[in-house]
């Protein structure tokens, strides 16, 4: 089962290495990992998407909590939360397909961020389903490159983690 885990960590060198090392050393898998500073520059927020049975996920959250530089860990699984991912797609745009691509981008509320006579570069953000859908729709046009940020997530409601 895929779980989205959010960790508040001290913004210190080596924290990422500790987290990555924990996953590789214990054979846990990482589907995606996103890190950036929070409002408070002394802390960072990590969003980790991982997969495993209940026992594995329990170990992952406990092991993360045990790292001295980690302040708080929340597994969003089963709770109400929003997750988003941003994706940049470079797609072949021949004159025959340009209009169709623009229409798809429009439907997905994406943006064209770069144009050449032969290609469009598109920016879209959304949840997993939306990202998958746009990739599927653009595939027939010829996708040259895809770059994804990985997921970020936040709980719904007024409270923070």
């Amino acid at each position, binding site marked *: 089962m895929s779980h989205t885990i959010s960790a508040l960590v*001290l913004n210190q*060198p*080596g924290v990422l290495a500790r987290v990555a090392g924990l996953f590789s050393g214990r054979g846990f898998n990482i589907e995606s990992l996103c890190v950036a500073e929070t409002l408070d520059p002394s802390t960072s927020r990590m969003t980790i998407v991982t997969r495993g049975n209940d*026992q594995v996920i*329990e*170990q992952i959250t406990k092991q993360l909590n*045990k790292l*001295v*530089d980690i*302040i708080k860990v929340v597994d969003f699984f089963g709770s109400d939360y929003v997750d988003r991912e941003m994706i940049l797609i470079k797609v072949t745009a021949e004159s025959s397909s340009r209009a169709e691509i623009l229409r798809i981008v429009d439907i997905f509320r994406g943006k064209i961020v770069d144009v050449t006579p032969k290609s469009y570069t598109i920016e879209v953000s959304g949840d997993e389903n939306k990202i998958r859908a746009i990739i599927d729709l653009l595939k027939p046009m010829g996708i040259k490159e895809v770059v994804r940020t990985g997921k970020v997530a936040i709980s719904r409601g007024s409270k923070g983690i």
Partner: protein
Amino acid sequence: MKKTGAQILLESLQLEGVDTIFGFPGGSVIGIYDALFNSPIRHILVRHEQAAVHAADGYARSSGRIGVCLVTSGPGATNTVTGIATAYMDSIPVVVLTGQVSTGLIGNDAFQEADIMGITRPCTKHSYLVKDVKELARTIKEAFYIAGTGRPGPVLVDLPKDVIADSAEFNYPESVNMQSYNPTYRGHRGQIQKAFKLILKANRPLIYAGGGVISSNASEELTTFARTLSIPVTATLMGLGCFPGVDDLSLGMLGMHGTYRANMAVTNCDLLIAIGARFDDRVTGKIDGFAPNAKIIHIDIDPTSISKNIRVHIPIVGDAKDVLKKINKLIQEEKEDWKSIRREWLDQIFQWKNTYLLAYEQKDVIKPQYVVEKIYEITKGEAIISTEVGQNQMWTAQYYHFTKPRTLLTSGGLGTMGYGFPAAIGAQIAFPEKTVIDIAGDGSIQMNIQELATVAQYNLPVKIAILNNRYLGMVRQWQGLFHNKRYSHTSLEVSPDFVKLAEAYGAVGLRATKPEEVVPTIEKALSISKAVIMDFVVEQEEDVYPMVPVGAPLKEMLLV
């Protein structure tokens, strides 16, 4: 007034109550060594950095204090890795101070540069690179705090040469303020209540005690708990000594080379109370066969140990001492005749005990078990014993009845050959008056034999008893049992003459080749106030029994 980084470091150590450090100098720490020259801190010059960590570890295990070692950058630092991993696996509080190249050179492949933080990240509890002398005092404070609290473990502090030379005002922080590190000491009352109810209802309860009982200094509480409710106790290798090994309720060690009665008791109990233990594979055997009919209560300070290998019914996160105190308070009210309530269960265990006693037959060649048994008798169980790894370690666990915590120093988790001798040095430094004996194998002892020079230099009367079977015995035993006796590269055909070797280093060497020489040899060694190597030429192909083969359930023990 400003002080140099080196002065700040040493004064911080003193404020942490450090009286001794184990170390080995080099270019990047020469400034610290200069400050040590007239510091009240005692420095023990080992002959290999691995031994510095093991000695600090032995000092910590035997005394309950934090062990400290100091080494130079690069090769000095990389030589500590096995020592650090050993301490990490057994949760021993050690602070490892490593030199580092100057901050401007880090990342440059500078001379004697090693990314020791990176190398040791998976085997330290935490680590620091001090980049600014102003951070040094706080870092040392935190390092000691982290090493010694919660589930203890090694903490590494990497000290660049320029930071040590730089100066700053010295203010040692009074307390630690870390928002991200708060170990849970106090057990949850509701969980303790639930556990208590289960304990009262159980018909065949069993305590499974591990090293956590020793690190939390909870032996007294454990003993009260077990004796009040007449609950038998089995201990892991790391837990030996946490409950008197000679008590009627003691079943000895469990697991791969555990006693028959302990393994049978685990298999048949209806309630297993795990305290400061982590369900290691050498303890559980095949997991499905481990306490298959039991409800499990697990008390541990480290949440990651709970439900890692086996599902438990009542987890209690907390310090063993605190939790046991609370349980003991609850049981005071229950004035039942626990002895008679337990009679059936204890009778059953007694039967198991008589079905298969640990035994060996002493004929004309010295049996290694006999040597351990005699060391136990002659020292009356009062010595501090360290071991190497292999058969020597298991026979020590089986035949030396540890009655007090912190009297057995052994590498349980990592199984590090070469641990025992330097660990004995650390213990001897902590307890100059006590008898400290390393029960060794002829293979393992050669892995840190150079420390004979250290014991000579500091007049440490450490005793080494080599169970010399001319084999890497434990591996040979496996080859015998599982590889058709194909003794591939386990024969130690050539070893030094250990008696002469001892003499070469200024120690005393004694050899026993006949059973009747064993007792006089031990007695003589103990009467000498110098380091002594006792070379016991023992039966070559003696095996350790009982033995649960890897992957089998505990009840499937190979007996002799």
